[in-house]
């Protein structure tokens, strides 16, 4: 049975229902129910990966489960968020919000499962439109500005990616001829050596800058911090990780076509320079951020850059490290944002302005449990042990030393600068003397954040055998 197609269809079906009926709270509960079913379906994809246009490979299935899990936890925390915030928007817009929640999930899954470069592009386009509408939902001046920026930058990226997609199709003509075969990832990577190398190089540049916009690689990152900071937080922050993964995986797959073609240019230097630029821009942008969501937005740019860097180093082990890094970081970042959303609502209604660091100071007095969870997530983000990210970063660094020693120095420096900049924020966030306030209950769903943290730790230090097997097989195939 083709569970992949089912898993893609369910969110779009749920979106059309959620968009039409229900109070905000009913919508949130129904949304969570749909996400629970979706999680089961994404797990089932391993046993029914489908064929034809929608055929999930193991890598896509793995990231699909990740997307399903993040959608599920975010939808549970979302119930509390909607109850606290219901008065902020009219009922109709809450319906739209829940529909967008599902559409973003569906678009991410379509991008992961599609074995067709055209469908992949359509998924990225749909995800972009849904996210833009999400960012503009509150209709504040800043929200509209952020949405406009997202739309223009994302739209240009989408356009460039389409041009690149068409060029890949043209490059595949000598090997595969006209028709659907020349757009399938499986067929393309099997015949990469016979493709037109020069055309493939040109195509990759368009793809890199097109999907690089969606993966927020510097210098195409401009939309991300603004998009994170405006709009309803569960949608614009927690769910943006899966979309970024789709773009990064697309870049990885197209990169493989170049590596397997004897004529095409080596893609390594492009990816290395974009990755390092992201790392350093984030390192130097951390210091002046006052809004926590913008701050962690720059951290997403940093992590995206690290994965792109790993793909640029090349070789199965480095790509293994990059993929593991993507899995761990997506889990960690969405957990962090769920904790952050709760922390902000401990200090009054979760309006956009309330995510400034000065507003969140001294969280320990508001609620110990939430404060320590948030601190744990932020600490894990630095990649210092015992954080799970330490493992993936260690693999990437050791591979860099082996394959491209001169690159290890800037990589290490960038990671260090980022870690220091992130660590500086933990102290004031927890211990700063805040005005006297009564401790508030942690609220439901915080165990989910703990689950995210534990998962990140376990997946890194006690990686299950099947996961290692899956990732190393995928990395070998895509080296």
């Amino acid at each position, binding site marked *: 049975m083709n569970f992949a197609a089912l898993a893609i269809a369910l969110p779009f079906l749920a979106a059309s229902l959620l968009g039409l009926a229900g109070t905000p709270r009913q919508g949130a509960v129904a949304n969570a129910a749909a996400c629970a079913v979706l999680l089961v379906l994404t797990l089932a994809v391993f046993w029914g990966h489908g064929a034809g246009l929608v055929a999930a490979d193991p890598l896509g299935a793995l990231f699909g489960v990740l997307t399903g899990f993040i959608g599920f936890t975010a939808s549970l925390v979302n119930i509390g968020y909607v109850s606290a915030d219901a008065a902020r928007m009219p009922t109709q817009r809450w319906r739209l919000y829940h529909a967008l929640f599902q559409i973003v999930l569906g678009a991410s899954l379509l991008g992961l499962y599609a074995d067709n470069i055209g469908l992949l592009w359509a998924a990225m386009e749909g995800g972009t*439109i849904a996210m833009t509408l999400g960012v503009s939902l509150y209709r504040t001046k800043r929200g509209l500005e952020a949405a*406009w920026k997202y739309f223009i930058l994302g*739209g240009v990226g989408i*356009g*460039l990616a389409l041009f690149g997609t068409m060029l890949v*199709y*043209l490059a595949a003509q000598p090997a595969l001829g006209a028709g659907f075969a020349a757009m399938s990832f499986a067929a393309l990577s099997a015949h990469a050596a016979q493709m037109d190398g020069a*055309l493939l190089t040109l195509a990759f540049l368009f793809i890199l800058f097109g999907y690089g916009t969606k993966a927020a690689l510097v210098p195409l990152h401009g939309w991300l911090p603004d998009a994170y900071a405006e709009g309803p937080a569960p949608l614009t922050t927690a769910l943006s990780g899966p979309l970024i993964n789709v773009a990064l995986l697309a870049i990885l797959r197209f990169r493989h076509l170049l590596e397997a073609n004897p004529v095409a240019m080596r893609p390594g230097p492009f990816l290395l320079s974009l990755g390092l630029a992201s790392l350093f821009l984030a390192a130097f942008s951390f210091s002046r951020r006052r809004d926590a969501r913008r701050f962690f937005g720059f951290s997403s740019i940093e992590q995206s850059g690290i994965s792109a860097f790993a793909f640029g180093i090349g070789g199965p082990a480095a790509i293994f490290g990059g993929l593991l890094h993507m899995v761990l970081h997506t889990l960690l970042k969405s957990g962090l944002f769920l904790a952050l959303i709760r922390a902000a609502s401990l200090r009054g209604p979760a309006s956009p302005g309330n995510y400034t660091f000065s507003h969140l100071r001294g969280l320990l007095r508001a609620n110990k449990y939430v404060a320590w969870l948030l601190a744990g997530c932020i600490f894990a983000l630095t990649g210092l042990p015992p954080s799970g990210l330490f493992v993936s970063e260690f693999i990437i660094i050791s591979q860099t030393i082996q394959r491209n020693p001169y690159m290890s120095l800037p990589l290490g420096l960038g990671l260090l600068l980022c870690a220091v900049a992130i660590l500086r924020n933990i102290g004031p966030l927890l211990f700063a003397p805040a005005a006297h306030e009564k401790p508030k209950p942690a609220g439901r769903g915080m165990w989910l954040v703990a689950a995210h943290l534990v998962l990140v730790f376990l997946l890194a230090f006690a990686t299950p055998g099947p996961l290692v097997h899956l990732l190393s097989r995928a990395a070998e195939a895509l080296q």
Partner: protein
Amino acid sequence: MSLTFSLAHLMGGIILLCAFLQLSQRRLAAMVTLYQLEALVLAAAAFWQGYAQHEINLYLTGLITFALKAMLLPWGLREIVQRFNMVRAVETALPMAAAMILGLALIGIAVLVVLPVTMHAISLTREDLAIALSVVLLGLLLMIVRRNALAQIIGFLSMENGLVLAAIGMPGMPFVAEFSVALLVLLAFLVVGVFLLRIREHFDTLDISGLEDIERRGR
């Protein structure tokens, strides 16, 4: 065969000319008219390619392009120009002449990049692709050199015409009609977004320099 070539190239040339002329227009109404002409020729080109390649999909693309891009979108854009009273010239970020020289350079780059790497492709696709890439780059340039939100949208629309021009020239490519529909949805959101959300209220004069507010606050 030679008629297929020369007509396809003629239409590609007209589209390129329209895209280039948009760089030289200060008034939004004139830009919309040029865009409309561009879309009309694109629709004709899609029909012609459909006839030459015997592809029903391309006829569909031509029909969509004609009805929505050449008729509905220009009408909507004119409505916005009228209603928000934006008939005056819009501000440019670069002097006109500099923008046009840059545009010429971009066309040169597109031709120099595409023609050598497509030596093995059939020649109809080759030259179409060079023209299409030029139109895409000119659209991007237009978005950069205009400060006005609506002018940026027109640049985006023009870029998107270049993409469709490239798609209809690909031999037997699946999903061409679907691509043009998907792009159209994106465009419709842009135009409707400006129209309904009345960015004017928030940005005062539809001048996107208001975006710098975000910069000032240090992101």
